[in-house]
């Protein structure tokens, strides 16, 4: 990152001249829980895209893409709302979610959650 501007070069009164500048700000660093997306479980319903209170669910050509981790704050609303039989979004701690085996673990969690739900129904 380039050196931030000094007082002579900044707009006066703390004004921000560019619109939509929140995109440049890494608010994902605030996250303590991380959502993991399991592509094979995803039914492309776009609930997560609608419910995300930020804009951290990316969509390209009508298909859901990976999370925008630079802005996701880990609120977990997407995981809660995901209607797939085996959840396509699982919340893990930031530390666990950053490990290489995170996706495999997430899949196991989703599977277990589906089984428990089925058991509870019986």
């Amino acid at each position, binding site marked *: 990152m380039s050196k*931030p*501007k*000094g*007082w002579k070069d*900044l*707009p*006066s*009164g*703390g*004004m*921000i*001249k560019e*619109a939509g*500048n929140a995109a440049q700000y890494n608010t994902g660093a605030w996250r303590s829980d991380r959502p993991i997306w399991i592509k094979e479980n995803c039914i492309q319903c776009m609930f997560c895209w609608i419910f995300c209170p930020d804009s951290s669910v990316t969509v390209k050509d009508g298909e859901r893409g990976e999370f925008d981790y630079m802005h996701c704050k880990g609120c977990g609303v997407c995981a809660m709302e995901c209607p797939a039989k085996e959840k396509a979004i699982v919340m893990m701690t930031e530390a666990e979610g950053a490990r290489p085996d995170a996706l495999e673990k997430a899949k196991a969690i989703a599977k277990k959650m589906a089984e428990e739900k089925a058991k509870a129904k019986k």
Partner: protein
Amino acid sequence: MPKKVAMTGNVAVASAMRQINPDVCAAYPITPSTEIMQQFSTFVANGQVDTNLVTVESEHSAMSACIGAAAAGGRVMNATSANGLALMWEMLYIASGNRLPIVLSCVNRALSAPINIHCDHSDSMGARDSGWVQIYAENAQEAYDNTVQAPRIGEHPEVRLPVMSCMDGFIISHSIENLELLDDAQVKDFVGPYKGTSYPLLDIGNPVTYGALHLQDFYIESKKQLHEAMKKAKDVVLEVGKAYGKLSGRSYGFFEDYKLADAEVAVVVLNSAAGTAKVIVDELRAKGIKAGLLKPRLFRPFPYLEVADALKGASAICVMDRADSFGAAGGPLFNEFRSALYDLPVRPMMINKIYGLGGRDVGLDDIRKVYMELVDLAQSGKASPLCEYITVRE
């Protein structure tokens, strides 16, 4: 041709506002400033101005409405006193922090408790650190003149700061005095079209953000900008005061010096009490005592180099404060002047008198006593108590 009229200080300020014709005014009443907006609302109702007058539910809301309107790109004015100013407190900092050149007429009144509606300067003195330019007036003429100059000072592209124009509650606000008003067209021309912001929020083609979060990484840069703008305001106040002099025949600077050039004893006093002090200066001069007076006009930014230069010849000086800074080494004006004179090669003796709180009258006798104490001080070289209350019952 200038018109000679008889008006209260409040009506004089309201008349200046009519001639300025601001885009937005917010109004919430508080004695003794109420009459300004009351009179102005008549101008609005009569269609003499195009102003959008917003009647709000508190002074906090009044200043908030002013801030919104100024950020939107309007020329904005307002009036208040005492506890009304106190309730605006956090918004005062937001107005200056966002660099919005709002003009506020502060009709000086004592702060509660005990509740009191009369004049002292505790309200505006408390706001001295809020990033507002502060200008003080001795009489209705000066209050009018300062109000006409205020927008040009605050809106200057290198300043862009809110301006507080102060006068004494009741003593000036409610007394009828003769004064000269400029023609409407002269004021319109003098104030000019509004250029207080380059980025109005109503310019929807160029959206900007006001009031964003600035943490450790940007806040201090913002304050440094304000610090520099305040310094720049000094030059602009002089420039505008000179231009106003050309127009009206009444020039304005940082302060008025009255028989000060060769004075051995001098008093520094703000606003209406300066008028009383001039009478005593004349009386003492007739007796051969070299008395002088400095009446500050610009308090923020404080012209510390210029006041030091003006007072350097005096051997004893009394700064009179119509406000106390409880527990400090004297009132707010005293601290400022004493600090300004510290760098003089020969420092004069200085004392402080706190007077007239809550509208307690300060008469000729009171001020004569102050000068005579200074004469003793200059002759004996013996220090008096640093800070004392006068006009108080023992």
